[in-house]
């Protein structure tokens, strides 16, 4: 009697374990024979997730019985890890959000569906969107992304501190920034807090293009940031800390946010996504503006969330059409998304009265005509990321801007060469 008992016990424990591991495979046609169920993945784990949920719920309401969208939200790092594995297993979501600069990399491994025809069917065209971001969704002549929003960096400033020093408007040029910061630096208060880690690379990227420099060659193999323009662009940032001393040294991760929140720094350059956090900060009377001109021509880094259709093992045209319908709906109704602290990519939404009422978003949106996106190439990240380390070292005064960028360029090009070989 012992063997059957053992077998039964093992079987029982096995079943319990399986029951605990829920299967991710959604039964596509279980709920009603005609309703299409779409799996939608995104990384909006912050408060902006709630705004996206509102739009999705609205869509599900209006399309009851026809299309139902199931959302899965997870931290971005987990999202990208999972993305790699689920596509190769044929279990990818039907529609998801991807950052613009990741699209070439995933498109080059065949994980994304081409959207040219599907976009044309729904009459999505360049004139309706910010043209730079619309164009940036193309890789090797084919479209892979439909832009939802752009999220640039911006200049935040403490209105109270400025008024105290006798200023009523934020600086527009580097010289003005330095001058005002000098007046605002006293005691334990600083004009600006220059971060040494994130988001210093975004500020550097903007400064680089403002000086007429470029980041990476279009083929994604050559580093262009170690040009004389690149060095000058980095030097301007380093000088704020070490030459003009209007910024404290050695700021650690998020240290600059803390200082701005405490009212100890007058200026703060960060992404548009900081708006709602700052709004909640007690006693912080802040304003927003385009970032100052470090160089000669305006240019501002921006990221963008794009909709993509991951490649399925057996593509279902009905589902694809439904997914595109969902995408168009969210884009058309992206004013709710704007409230989360984003700038809608669709022109009509951005030019609406409702959007203009969102003071900060509208201020930051002034930069739309000169937003810069990284060139579309699968090896862009390989070449660019060492520059971020170089920026960090230069801001910590561990290397000169020239040396830092030179070392980064050689490392980056080597990495890109290796990746391109595979």
């Amino acid at each position, binding site marked *: 009697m*012992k*063997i059957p*008992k*053992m077998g039964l*016990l*093992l079987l029982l*424990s*096995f079943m319990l*374990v399986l029951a605990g591991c829920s299967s991710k495979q959604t039964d596509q046609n279980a709920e009603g024979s005609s309703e299409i169920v779409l799996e939608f993945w995104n990384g909006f784990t912050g408060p902006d997730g709630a705004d996206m949920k509102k739009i999705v719920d609205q869509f599900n309401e209006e399309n009851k019985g026809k299309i139902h969208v199931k959302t899965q939200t997870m931290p971005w*790092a987990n999202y990208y*890890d999972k993305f*790699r*594995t689920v*596509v*190769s297993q044929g279990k990818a979501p039907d529609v998801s959000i991807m950052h613009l600069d*990741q699209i070439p*990399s995933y498109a080059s*491994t*065949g*994980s994304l569906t081409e959207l040219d025809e599907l976009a044309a069917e729904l009459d999505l065209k360049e004139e309706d969107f910010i043209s730079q971001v619309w164009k940036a969704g193309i890789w090797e002549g084919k479209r892979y992304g439909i832009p939802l929003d752009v999220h640039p960096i911006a200049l935040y400033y403490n209105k109270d501190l400025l008024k105290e020093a006798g200023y009523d408007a934020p600086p527009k040029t580097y010289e003005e920034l330095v001058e005002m910061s000098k007046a605002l630096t006293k005691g*334990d208060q600083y004009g600006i*807090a220059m971060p*040494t*880690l994130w988001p210093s690379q975004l500020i550097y990227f903007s400064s680089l293009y403002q000086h007429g420099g470029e980041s990476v060659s279009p083929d994604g193999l050559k580093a262009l940031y170690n040009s004389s323009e690149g060095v000058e662009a980095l030097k301007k940032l380093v000088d704020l800390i070490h030459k003009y001393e209007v910024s*404290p*040294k*050695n*700021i*650690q*991760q998020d*240290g600059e946010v*803390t*200082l701005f929140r*405490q009212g*100890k720094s007058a200026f703060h350059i960060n992404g548009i996504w900081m708006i709602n956090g700052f709004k909640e900060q007690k006693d912080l009377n802040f304003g927003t503006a385009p970032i100052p001109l470090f160089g000669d021509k305006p240019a501002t880094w921006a990221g963008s969330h794009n909709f993509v259709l991951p490649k399925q093992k057996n593509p279902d045209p009905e589902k694809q059409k439904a997914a595109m319908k969902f995408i168009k709906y969210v884009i058309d109704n992206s004013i709710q998304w704007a409230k989360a602290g984003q700038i809608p990519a669709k022109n009509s939404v951005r030019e609406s009265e409702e959007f203009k009422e969102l003071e900060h978003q509208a201020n930051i949106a002034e930069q739309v005509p000169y937003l810069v996106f990284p060139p579309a190439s*699968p*090896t*862009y*990240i*390989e070449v660019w*990321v060492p520059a971020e*380390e170089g920026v*960090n*070292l230069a801001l*910590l005064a*561990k290397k000169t801007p020239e040396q830092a960028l030179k070392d980064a360029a050689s490392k980056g090009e*080597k*990495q890109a060469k*290796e*990746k391109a070989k*595979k």
Partner: protein
Amino acid sequence: MEVKTTITQKVNLNTSKKSYKKLNVTPYLFIAPHLFFFSIFLVIPTFYGIYLSFHQWDFFTEPVFVGFQNFADLLFNKDSLYYADFWNAFGNTVLFVALSVPPLIIIPLLVAIAVDTKTWGNNLFRTIFYTPSLFSIATVALIWIWMLDTNAGLVNYYINKLGFENIPWLTDLPWAWVSLVVMTIWWTMGYNMLLFLAGLQDIPQHLYEAAKIDGANAFQRFFHVTLPGLKGTMFFVVIMTTIASFNLFGQPYMATKGGPGQDTVTLLMYIQRIGFGGGSPDAGVASAMAIIMGIFLSLVSIVQFKIMNRKDKSVT
């Protein structure tokens, strides 16, 4: 008159007539659930990792067999993508082990001895010293990030009051290492302290009394009674602490982000970066690194084992 009494007893040596033919399965039933999870989460991944280390795999395409290429690239090939960063991470990790293991043995030992004196408040202090090890790594890192903030942190606030400049605790060397070591000691000393406490209870009191009678002072009692008595515990603590320090990941990942530059990037951080981070992950290279790390750790543990065992034999 002798009375002979014989007692005959039937001793049931085994459970049943059939049992010498079949296994006694009860023990296996007890370990079955754990064995099940052990196989799935430890044994299978280990073999899969060994398999992957001879391939290169970016998760999308099929793994490509490359033989010993990964190991060569990491260990010997100066021109490979990974050589410089791997040895940098390796060196940083070894440095951290050297810096953290001695304090992580000495401090908990001294605290355990203090708590063991059973004076007033020893239970309270034991709780105070142990509680940090109950926190998760994220909590610990956040607490110290706030305290050590270069400009807004509590520590620099008091340093300023004493008249010194802000110390860049998390953004510059050597302070970053100081911060990481202090953070780790604060977090994990409680566990070692408890182990030493248990070991101290096992030392018979009469040995101390005998030593006192022989005229030994506190130091001599420590070196000749306490330390030898703690051999077993010390052995366990040294090996476990070394292994734990080699696995340093959370503290630099959150607090220094591997900075300045790459100076506080540890082996596990680099493995995670290559395996999962960035634009082009390579699970094969990451697995090879993990294998190398595992082999090195085993060697270190064996050396420690031999040293401590050898010393043991000389004590009579």
